[in-house]
């Protein structure tokens, strides 16, 4: 199983083992990453990738095993120790102070003394040098919140380099980027590698692994099940290694057969709590038996659009018609009665109450229904239905009394999908159906969405995963800066859509 790289190792993990109670998060991990290479770590949610990287960055201590950096054993008790060992981390959710400038963020925690002035001068000089060496140009005086996401990420990388990182860990770095931004990131990573830095890339996107890494390790159930030279492997092989069985990467679906209009949005404008227009005069229709996908980079108004249709956010003008009825003034409960079901973007904050037991979440939003009792909760009926859904949707572990937080991301999402689809709604609106969901569950959830369409329902799908939009949608609308900037058929090319998402071509 072990794979010997030719060059000298930057980092070696020997026999790393970590348990959380009964959960064996990392089992006897042995991993060697060569200096000056890009190593990918891929695996489903809950496979132990994050735990392993957290051990490397000092958030957790391994129960057993050894970490060696450039051949020397090190003990990493906290992130300070990781930084002084030359490890830098770029988190999935940026750790930046939004109203600070780039320079201030880069210096934060490494100010170099009680008085700022000297630190500022040397940081500025260092930033110039990093820019020259790696082509990481960012205006040091720009305020973070005014920068596009891709630039913010670059600041995260600069932060790590400023602290002298020789080994960079990137956790799902492309989740928030447009395709052109992701391409640019990869260019930067290649430069860094060619300058001798070592990069560990954690991702669940197989294509990225193929595009950028030199070597790749696959994790499954806390173990590294394979390490390959990227050139010697295929997407299919990696997918199979991740899941432990053959998976369909392509969704199979027949021709759409659109019927009458079930959801219609007319001149909709939605503002956020600060009064900024997030959805700007948007109109579209979704017919029975079709899936309309809304593509776009996160933050271009899709979330607000979904919330307005679901009755959570009041639009400032325009009209939404569900099943022939205007929904003005309706709350989410009334909309459910109208036949609208909503799988929200963020299951942790909206779709589920994580502290509830599974069966309690299986009625969220439908709890007032008579079938679950009058004033009292009919616990028997609720649990019986929850158990049926657990079987039908293969939710694991099959325990309706388990706290929802203890299910994996994919199974949590299945709880939401089961609850919403099993109500047999006429209109189904879905946000990010497979965010943080493992491949096996993605396949399952996609199939359920297609089934819903084939049953003659109208489906509106919002996702930042362009692949997902392209493989599921019959029609694609692209949102940019709150407006629908174009409509394409489901067969539209990635290039075209990517440019539209970036607001370049309509």
């Amino acid at each position, binding site marked *: 199983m072990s794979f010997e790289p030719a060059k000298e190792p930057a980092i070696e993990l020997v026999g790393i083992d970590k348990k*959380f109670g*009964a959960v064996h998060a990392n089992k006897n991990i042995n991993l060697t990453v060569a200096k000056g290479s890009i190593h990918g770590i891929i695996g489903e949610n809950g496979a132990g990738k994050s735990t392993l990287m957290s051990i490397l960055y000092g958030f957790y201590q391994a129960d057993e095993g050894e970490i060696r950096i450039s051949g020397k054993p090190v003990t990493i008790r906290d992130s300070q120790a990781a930084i002084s060992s030359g490890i830098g981390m770029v988190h999935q959710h940026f750790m930046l102070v939004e109203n600070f400038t780039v320079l201030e963020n880069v210096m934060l925690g490494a100010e170099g003394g009680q008085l700022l002035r000297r630190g500022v001068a040397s940081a500025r000089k260092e930033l110039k040098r990093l820019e020259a060496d790696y082509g990481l140009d960012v205006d040091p005086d720009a305020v973070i919140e005014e920068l596009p996401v891709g630039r913010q990420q670059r600041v995260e990388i600069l932060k790590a380099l400023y602290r002298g990182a020789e080994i960079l860990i990137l956790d799902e770095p492309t989740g928030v980027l447009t395709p052109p931004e992701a391409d640019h990131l990869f260019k930067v990573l290649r430069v860094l590698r060619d300058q001798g830095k070592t990069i560990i890339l954690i991702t669940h996107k197989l294509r990225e692994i193929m595009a950028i890494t030199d070597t790749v390790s696959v994790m499954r159930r806390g173990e590294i099940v394979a390490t390959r030279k990227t050139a010697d492997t295929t997407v299919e092989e990696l997918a199979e290694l991740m899941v432990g069985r053959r998976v369909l990467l392509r969704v199979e679906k027949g021709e759409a057969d659109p019927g009458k209009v079930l959801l219609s949005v007319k001149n909709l404008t939605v503002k956020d709590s600060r009064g900024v227009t997030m959805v700007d005069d948007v109109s579209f229709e979704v017919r029975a038996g079709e899936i309309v996908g809304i593509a776009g980079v996160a933050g271009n108004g899709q979330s607000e659009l979904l919330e307005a249709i679901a009755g959570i956010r009041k639009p400032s003008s325009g009209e939404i018609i569900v099943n022939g009825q205007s929904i003005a003034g309706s*709350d989410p*409960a009334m*909309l459910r009665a109208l036949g609208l079901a909503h799988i929200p973007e963020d299951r942790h904050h*909206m*779709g589920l*109450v994580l502290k509830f037991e599974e069966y309690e979440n299986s009625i969220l*939003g439908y709890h007032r229904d008579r079938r679950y009792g009058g004033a009292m909760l009919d616990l028997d009926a609720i649990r019986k239905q929850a158990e049926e859904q657990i079987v039908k949707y293969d939710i694991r572990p099959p325990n309706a009394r388990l706290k929802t937080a*203890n299910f994996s991301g994919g199974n949590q999402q299945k709880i939401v999908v089961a609850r919403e689809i099993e109500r047999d709604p006429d209109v189904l609106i879905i946000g990010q159906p497979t965010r943080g969901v493992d491949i096996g569950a993605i396949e399952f959830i996609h199939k359920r969405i297609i089934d819903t369409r084939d049953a003659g329902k109208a489906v509106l799908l919002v996702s930042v995963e362009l692949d997902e939009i392209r493989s599921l949608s019959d029609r694609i609308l692209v949102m940019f800066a709150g407006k629908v900037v174009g409509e394409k058929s489901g067969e539209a090319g990635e290039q075209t859509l990517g440019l539209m998402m970036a607001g370049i071509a309509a």
Partner: protein
Amino acid sequence: MSTASVPLPGWINYGVIPLINLALAFFFSGIVVWAIGENPFEALQLLLVGALGRGEGIGFTLFYTTSFIFTGLSVAVAIHSGLFNIGSEGQAYLGGLGAALVALSLDAYVPWYVTMPFAVIGAALFGAACAAIPAWLQAKRGSHVVITTIMFNFIVSSLMNYVLVHMLIVPGKMAPESRTFLPGGQLPKLDWLIAMFGGKLGAAPLNFSFLIALIMCFLVWVLIWRTKLGYEMRTLGISPSAASYAGIGYSKIVMITMLISGGLAGMMALNPVMGASARLQIEFVGGAGFVGIAVSLMGRNHPAGIVLSALLFGILYQGGAELSFDMPAITRDMIVVIQGMVILFAGALEYMLRPAIVRAYQQFARSPAGGR
């Protein structure tokens, strides 16, 4: 960071951790007692004997327990909806007016068991009324309920001063209190309950409201965990965004919760007003509303836990009074220090020891004896 989310079995969470916290509180109280030159073991013995040694002591302990159960439940109900009601003190005080008005109107005409249900309703309505304005301000205007409820404590205090001094005072008397209720406005003592265990209640004011408190515990449990309203309350309390997704109205739940919470606090007045002194007195709540916060916190906002922690505070109140009587060096203020220690360790520092216990538990679970 890593240990906070590790699930521990219930017997550790609800048994071992509270007991260790309690032991620590007594340990540090013992040091304080020792520092002023008294024997801590003797003090502990006096405290426990004073609270539990005789029927009369037990009667006093359970009398205090009754008040703390009501205010503890009041705080707990609000917490389940994510609201921090620290106005139980004032709500209980105003509740006393409700109970007293019912007792004063009916006591001459009907026996106590007819007066009682009306008094329960009256106390609850007045307590709820006191919570209604802060509730409305939170629900509709976003004024934080912590601020408004604590302000209302002062408003109610002044209002009750006025009512007692100018309206309910017995003409010609100096004390700002209502007339003594006739037996038709008094709740009977629970002599028989203590007698069942072979003790004598004596002068202790333990009365029927203790049983009402236990019934309320059960009803609160049903409300929170068995009704749809309780389901909506818990959803809102844990995740306001999930509540809005589910179409659970924020204003409605905030209003209902605060009215129930205020009503429970108001019922606390039954115990001192109709049970113990048989008249409405100034400042009769005496801090029980604030103790309710500690009781609820320690009892993990669960009725069963609230009964146990209310009992603990009852023991501290009664035992502490006896202790300061028997050991003159230990003043009332010292008792407050000990109570403070319990609140500090059992409430505020609840999570201080948790990481260590989690580690110990994992060590144990990994060893062959405990492993699976």
